[in-house]
């Protein structure tokens, strides 16, 4: 399980993000800048995009920053790649490729 929900700790820093996609089916109409905690991970961001899309049935998304998949928190990603949280971060989202679901031991 992804430990994904940051407990809005006062210590986390904030970053402005701009969400983009190349998939016209899930394009966001409104592109107002968004300020989020850098503690967020993939699952929280996916929840966010679904919220913004007002999707009936949530679509799982993966995220790319500078062409690299986000596998950690935004904060860890920025540190590992020497990117400043002072700048607006362009975050690209793509539909997550879900492996075929096997019904095994639930």
């Amino acid at each position, binding site marked *: 399980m992804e430990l*994904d*929900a*940051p*407990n*809005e700790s*006062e*210590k*986390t*820093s*904030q970053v*402005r993000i701009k969400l983009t996609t190349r998939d016209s089916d899930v394009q966001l109409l409104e592109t*107002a*800048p*968004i*300020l*989020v*905690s850098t503690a*967020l991970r993939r*699952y*929280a961001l996916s*929840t*966010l995009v679904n*919220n913004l899309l007002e999707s009936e049935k949530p679509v799982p998304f993966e995220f790319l920053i500078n062409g690299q998949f986000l596998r950690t928190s935004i904060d860890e990603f920025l540190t590992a790649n020497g990117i*400043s*949280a*002072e*700048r*607006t971060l362009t975050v690209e989202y793509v539909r997550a490729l879900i492996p075929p679901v096997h019904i095994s031991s639930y």
Partner: protein
Amino acid sequence: TIHLDPSNQEIGLTRNDARSLWQQHEMSTRTLAAALAEQLRLILAPTMATKLRGDFRTGKRLNIKRIIPYIASSYKRDKIWMRRGVPSKRSYQIMIALDDSKSMAEGESKDLAFETLALVSKALSMLESGELCVVGFGEDTTIAHPFDKPFTDDAGVEVLSQFTFEQEKTDVRKLVADGINLFQEARAKASGSASELWQLMLVVSDAICDDPDAIRRLVRKSQEEKIMIVFIVIDASARPEKGGKSIMDLEKVDITADANGEMKVLRQKYMADVFPFRWWIVVRDVAELPGVLATALRQWFAEVVESG
């Protein structure tokens, strides 16, 4: 264009670049500075005719609010008159805190910030009374110009040369804490014990800051210390040619899991719901500043006088 001299990381601009940049901003804002100085002179000068106020046994005009209690108390509560107060001598200390963080370089906020600095510092130095201090903030707070030195054009050049807009953090909490300390020190050194000292902090920034709750606590502390903090929000990227994305549109999104592990999304307008300062104005063009700042200061000072 502004270059960082890699051989001298401490200084953002060469002295010559800083000088020409200062002259350019000083020149472009000269008329506005004179206008602002004139407005500030009216605001900061002691009011000649102060308001009628107070509860006295004799006086100039009846306080209507006291009449009913006066009758109800069988004419015992007889402090029903108001008097005109004596205007007090007023001096001020103003700190301009300029955001030196990297986010200011985005959307060309730094040009507007420099213009604002040139305009406000010039206007204040024209008043020739009171003290002006300039600090830079980011990861740390640095004094670019202290209270006890006059703010000349050379001082302006000196101040500009200290800004790089390369700081990797924007620690507004630290700025407010450091600002309160600097004001406490400056108050202790201020001359004229009888004079009324007004302390004002003008923060010039893009308004993006962490930890709003901790900042809110410090803002309350500054109010207790009678330090007024006015936030000048530089909204350069709202200009159509810069993309037209205003700070007023910025949404703060919090994503948290509830007890059942279900994710909840909370969307708030950043400036209206999250931004921790009480008094702020949004500026997109430096030409708006004298008018907006003067109107705002007049209101806020009136409030200080009322509450004091």
